[in-house]
């Protein structure tokens, strides 16, 4: 059963948008994916209700507003704070994982080097 029908990917790396999208396509055609280049843009889109994701994938290292800054902001906003957020980053540093948990992310995924693995992860997350 598909758990989330709309996703928001916040990541400054355009290539990662492409990879994510490609993997997603192989998993499901029913899921809608929106992207934002950084935390600030993402907040704007969310506030303006230009995007209404059921799940947010959040990169950490981004210009203007990084992942943790975005997440803190998000948690302050009624109506937005309950949207589940999964950190999606190249780093796997335990400090980052810890901070993610503290800031309110429900999970932390290292960007898999393996395309198939990304597909598997997405499968696991999106489907029960």
């Amino acid at each position, binding site marked *: 059963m598909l758990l989330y029908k709309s996703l928001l990917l916040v990541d400054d*790396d355009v*290539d990662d948008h492409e*990879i994510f999208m*490609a993997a997603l396509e*192989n998993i499901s055609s029913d899921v809608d994916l929106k992207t934002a280049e950084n935390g600030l843009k993402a907040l704007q889109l969310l506030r303006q209700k230009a995007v209404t994701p059921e799940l947010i994938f959040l990169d950490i290292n981004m210009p203007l507003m990084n992942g943790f800054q975005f997440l803190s902001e998000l948690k302050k906003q009624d109506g937005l704070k309950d949207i589940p957020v999964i950190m999606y980053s*190249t780093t796997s540093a*335990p*400090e980052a994982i810890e901070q993610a948990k503290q800031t309110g992310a429900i999970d932390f995924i290292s*960007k*898999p*080097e*393996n*395309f*198939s693995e*990304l597909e598997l992860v997405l499968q696991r997350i999106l489907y029960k």
Partner: protein
Amino acid sequence: MPDEISLNEEQKEIDHGNSRFQKLVEQAPIGICIINAITLVAEILNERFVQVAGKPYKTILGSYYWDTFAEAAPYYETALQDVVDKGVKFTADEVELMLIRDGKPDYINVTFVYDPIKGEDGTTQKVAIWVVENTERVRAQKKIEDNEHALRNIILQAPVAMCIFRGAEFIIEIANEKMFEFWGRGSDDIIGKPVFEALPEAKNQGYEELLSNVFITGDSFTANELPVVLPRNGKRENVFVNFSYEPIREVDNSISGIIAVAIDVTKQVTNRHNIESEVAERTRELAEVNQRLQQNNKELQQFAYIASHDLQEPVRKVFTYTQMLEKNLVAVDERSATYIKKIAAASHKMLALIRDVLSFSQLSREREQFKQVNLADIVENIKNDFELLIEEKQAVIQSKNLPVLAAIPLQMNQLFGNLVSNALKFSKKDTAPVIEITGKTLSKEALSKYKDLNQSLEYYLIQVSDYGIGFNQENADIIFDIFQRLNSTVEYEGTGIGLAICKKIAINHNGNLTARSGLNNGATFNIFLPKSR
């Protein structure tokens, strides 16, 4: 007849008087011989005299004096005659005399007196010869004088500065050349003067007290490497001197003076100072080099971090896009397919290497974050991390006696994570892996066998054992070398850094990591970690 009776009584009195006199002479503590002034015949003598004379009583008594003492006649016959003629006492004080005593010539020292005994008419009737032998005392005295003479010579010829102060005024009795040099004076101004008069510049520097103390208490005094300024060769030179004051004791143990010795130790002191300053210089240089090295290290670490961190991204993308390419290419000839697979494999390896290098370079950085870590919790975390793999392999991880200790939590995670990951990876095919992690305290005795460990700390030994494929014990050391692998990458994935990281973590914590194994017999990794820093 009254005259006869009174004559008898007089005679008796005389006799009585005589015998009293006789007793006196006998008992006198000095040698006494009374000779007739005219005949020079010995009429009375005592035992003491006989002793000194060294001739028998009977020989002396009643004999002509100069017959008895012929050997002394040449020297004293005239003197004796003078006494008789002039009635004036003659004294010979501490004279050396050769006497034939007991038949042998003897050199003795005597003090004697020729004392005229006058009659009522004033003429000398008898001569009393009083004699005392001084020989022993004189010999001792001579010895002392000889010794003093010898001492003087020693002092004069000594290769170190020496002098003698005599009396409470510390009169400079004798000093040698070196001491004059030391004082910067000639002998004329100094000998016979009290030291503080002769050397006014020595006043009020504490020497008065020093000397007095030695003189009064008899305790000797030494001072080492005292800096002194001496006028030498027309210049003022800085020298270093060891000097000592020793009391001079007389025969009766009283202190009569002080002997002072001063040794120039400038050379050894300057040598030592030179060595010390060289050592200080080297130490400073070493500290500088060390600092530069540390700086270098830091820069290298930063470089490694940045390089590997920034390298990860593009490599990851190469790998991922390669896979996507694989998927996308509809019809691919076999060769192309192989090429793509090779690209994928190589970039995958690159990624793993970069990750591990990054991890390794980061290890020394995290010095500050020591906390109380419960290793049981760490193992639980790891079981969670490897949940999928554990389930897949049906592995069992058992832990027991895991302590709490001071450590960097993240590094403990890495350490145990790597070891468990290895144990899972190198398990025997078709056998469910069993991994045992047990802890115990290392006894002092056991600790002493491990020379690499800090013997002043208390250590835990945590053992991670498996029943996997193991390795040849010969390789037990090299497996910890970076990039060293015992198996081919085809069979068992890995970069060969994992164990190097583990060992570095253990050493970071002041501990160590060793391994024991046998081919096909599983392996045990021994982690030594101190209880606290």
